[in-house]
């Protein structure tokens, strides 16, 4: 079916719908900016004429044929931009909070290593203490991630008491 020598599909998707979109956009823009004053009818008429002018220009230049494809491309680009932005934002803000199986294994290893180092330190090997401090630092970060209470570990409790002692004593 053809209307004014234009197929129905082209008339709806390439002329009518873009016309409505432009009309609404221009009308909203004119109402918001109040460039022509408070007169609503004048804004509506101007938006109608301007959108019709844009569509006629596009049609006479043959751009309306690609308008539907262009709209779809813009929609896909918007979705892709939102998806990429959301993924990057999520990774940067919340990504570090999620614990993995590797973290759990590492936590167990560090717990054992820390216990061994603590025992060595108690035996009188003072060179084990700096290594123990490094292990504790890593363990605290992992415990926060895994939401575990380090005070339930016996040697960690003793280590903390030992650390507090010189501070209290001055």
């Amino acid at each position: 079916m053809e209307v004014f020598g234009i197929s129905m599909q082209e008339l709806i998707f390439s002329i009518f719908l873009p016309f409505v979109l432009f009309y609404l956009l221009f009308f909203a823009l004119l109402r918001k900016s109040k460039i022509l004053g408070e007169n609503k009818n004048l804004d509506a008429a101007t938006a109608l004429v301007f959108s019709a002018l844009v569509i006629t220009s596009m049609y006479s230049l043959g751009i309306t044929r690609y308008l539907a494809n262009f709209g779809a491309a813009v929609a896909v680009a918007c979705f892709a931009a939102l998806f990429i932005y959301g993924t990057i934002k999520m990774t940067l803000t919340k990504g570090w909070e999620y614990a993995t199986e590797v973290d759990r294994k590492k936590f167990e290893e560090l717990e054992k290593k820390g216990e061994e180092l603590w025992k060595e330190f108690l035996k009188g090997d003072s060179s084990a203490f700096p290594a123990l401090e490094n292990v504790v630092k890593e363990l605290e970060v992992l415990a926060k991630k895994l939401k575990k209470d380090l005070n339930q570990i016996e040697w960690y409790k003793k280590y903390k008491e030992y650390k507090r002692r010189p501070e209290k004593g001055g």
Partner: protein
Amino acid sequence: MFELLFQFLFFMLSFLLVFGMLNKLRIFNRNLNVVIAFVIAFYVISVSFIFAEDVQKVLACFGILVIIVLGAVLVYTASGLREQKRKF
């Protein structure tokens, strides 16, 4: 036919814009505003015969630009950047 429609729309647009601006400025009374807008619109239409093609190209580019800007605004709003900026 499309050329005629284009000329008419161009006339209407210039008339409405000039009339609206004159109404807002309130320099003359309403009837005089109509006359001035009519004269300026006829003047614009006489010029548009010469630059019709260029004006069409500019308007078509403007239409495409509007779609791109609309997409950018949608992404800006949907991503939450607009809300973040408002908080600060």
